[in-house]
């Protein structure tokens, strides 16, 4: 199940943004710089509360944030908010191609005082063998 915010994820295709600190790609391709944004949870507290209530996407974000943030002790520096970004390639950004084509790289970015903490997802089409627990 998903919380209201997760079930209403919407990207405004007229508002393409540029990442000033793009995350290195996992393969040889250049890092993705262009993205569309969706304002997700307003704070980490609300993210954790939604995860506690059983929202699958919030649980996934919380799970990975825990591992990334596990070594960082100052909780006050890590309050959010959380932004969901859908990245497109430079070619797509320039050519205005079909942004709805999958798969896409999606980042859940916790905007904190110190730095952005990212959880990186692949948004892919349903495949026969992909299961979900929800």
């Amino acid at each position, binding site marked *: *199940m*998903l919380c209201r915010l*997760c*079930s*209403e*994820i*919407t*990207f*405004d*295709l*007229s508002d393409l943004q540029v990442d000033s600190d793009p995350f290195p790609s*996992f393969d040889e391709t250049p890092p993705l710089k262009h993205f*569309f944004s969706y304002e997700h949870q307003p704070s980490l507290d609300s993210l954790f509360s939604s995860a506690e*209530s*059983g929202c*699958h*996407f919030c*649980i*996934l974000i919380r*799970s*990975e944030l825990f*591992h990334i943030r596990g070594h960082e002790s100052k909780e006050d520096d890590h309050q959010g908010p959380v932004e969901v970004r*859908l990245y497109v390639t430079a070619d797509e950004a320039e050519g205005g191609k079909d*942004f*709805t084509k*999958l*798969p896409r*790289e*999606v980042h859940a970015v916790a905007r904190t005082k110190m730095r952005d903490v990212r*959880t*990186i*997802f*692949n*948004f*892919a*089409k*349903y*495949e026969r*063998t*992909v*299961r*979900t*627990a*929800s």
Partner: protein
Amino acid sequence: MENDPPTIECEENFKLASRWLNECLKHHSMCTISTLPTSPLPSRVLDVNSQLTPSKLALVSSKGRHGPYLTLSHVWGKIQIITTTKATLSQRLAGIELADLSRTFRHAVRFARAINVRYIWIDSLCIVQDDLKDWEAESQKMGEYYTNSLLTVAAVGSSDGNGGLFLERNALEVTPCSMKMRFESNSACHTVRGFLRFITSWDPALQVDGYHRPPLWQRAWVLQERLLSSRMIMCSGLQMSWKCRMGEASENCPEGEVKETHLSQEEAALWNVLIESHQEGVNGDQDKVSQWKLGKQVEKDELLSLYDAWYDLVMLYGKCGLTKESDIFPAISGIASAIHKATGDRYLEGLWQNDTHRGLLWGVPDSAAAKPDLREYRAPSWSWASLRGTCTFHVRQISQARMKVEAKAEVSAPEISTHTLPQIFRYKLEVRGKVKRAHPMDRSWEMEEEDIFKDIPHDHETLFDLEEKEAIGWYFADNVDKKCLPEIWCCLILTEEQPGRVGEEDEDIPPRIEGRGIALLLLDRERRIYMRVGSVWIRDAGWCESCAKETFSII
């Protein structure tokens, strides 16, 4: 709103595991080589579908039968787990109540039944633990048991038998999330459905090195269980994952990924060895295997990579825990045996005869150097196995083109100690090379420096020739007990050509030949017997030039 999170133990996951297994058997030619349908069963196996009631299983003697079976990789831990002993063997053959098994074993049986594999091999039950003869015979075959197993089930996250295979966790933390996303533009609005899942997710089952590795990967015996198994189902506190020679899969990525680079260097090198050695066994294809055997120029690089892989394994092995010191060689013998089978090289006390010059030059990191001597004998001083803790083999990074071997070393026939049971075979290393006396300086003893070394110019060197009154290089003691020695004997094993380079402030550094060797303590002057106490790095190998080669032994 709250769901009941499923645990790893669920029908859906059993189906997933079966699917991974079937996909691998059907499509992965690399993985199926060593697990043919005709694999011989281990001497004893547990029959999980015997004619007994479902609440029972039975230990059976395989009597030369063939068939698919699972192997379990688990941590024994500090709690007493069920074993087979001489006294309980007949009971086990008559049947074992599921309730008498540890939680991990019960889960393993449940898993075997769920994926329809009738036999499972579990070390504590299939080897008669207090029968030395049986233990020795079976422990030698353990490598083969894991290599020939259809699938190894690894209780990665459990530190003892109570932990279980299926740990409680929240499946929603790893499984893909079904989502829909809306895309709005001035002219249209689209809704796209799909699944969100981590691109790369932290998976404890894949952390095989470092402080944060899970309990199973911290155990020495498990290293060969992991490396020799063609396929593994790994159950951690996070998820169930799959790893075979050709790919990986997990609950996060159930359809799996065929990867070419997911194997570490040692895994890849070892896998080549297993394929080659198995083909020899299956096809009797001696020509193919002989290509690997020593002396063929074309295979030299591959052999070097194989020895390098062995040194990497030894380093990792040293970081793992061993309950019995005497298991140091048996616990890795399966891997050694596979390498021997493929290369024909002689393996003794942890070293390979055709790479002895590099195998002898192990170094000791601070973590191991801080430890005292072992209290019981387990290996000769020249073997890495005599060291408590891990060692390093930096010497393997030296380019072969710039390296010259200076000493010839061969392991001699063993002397058998009759004072111990089981008997200990003590191997000597017979060396033909140069030895020269030097004096190590322990920097923590400043007074010593004042008295003996004060008039000798040096630049952080720790090894001196007091007769020539010069600093000659560095001494690295094997442990704290070997640190404060008044004198050592340096045996140069190989030299390395260092090209000259332009230094700072017009001080050009001329080319020079450095020496790498082992530090010895003279035990018997008359019979020329030494023991290793450390390693040495000689700044200018010319220091040994005036010495004649001699023959001596290292014990």
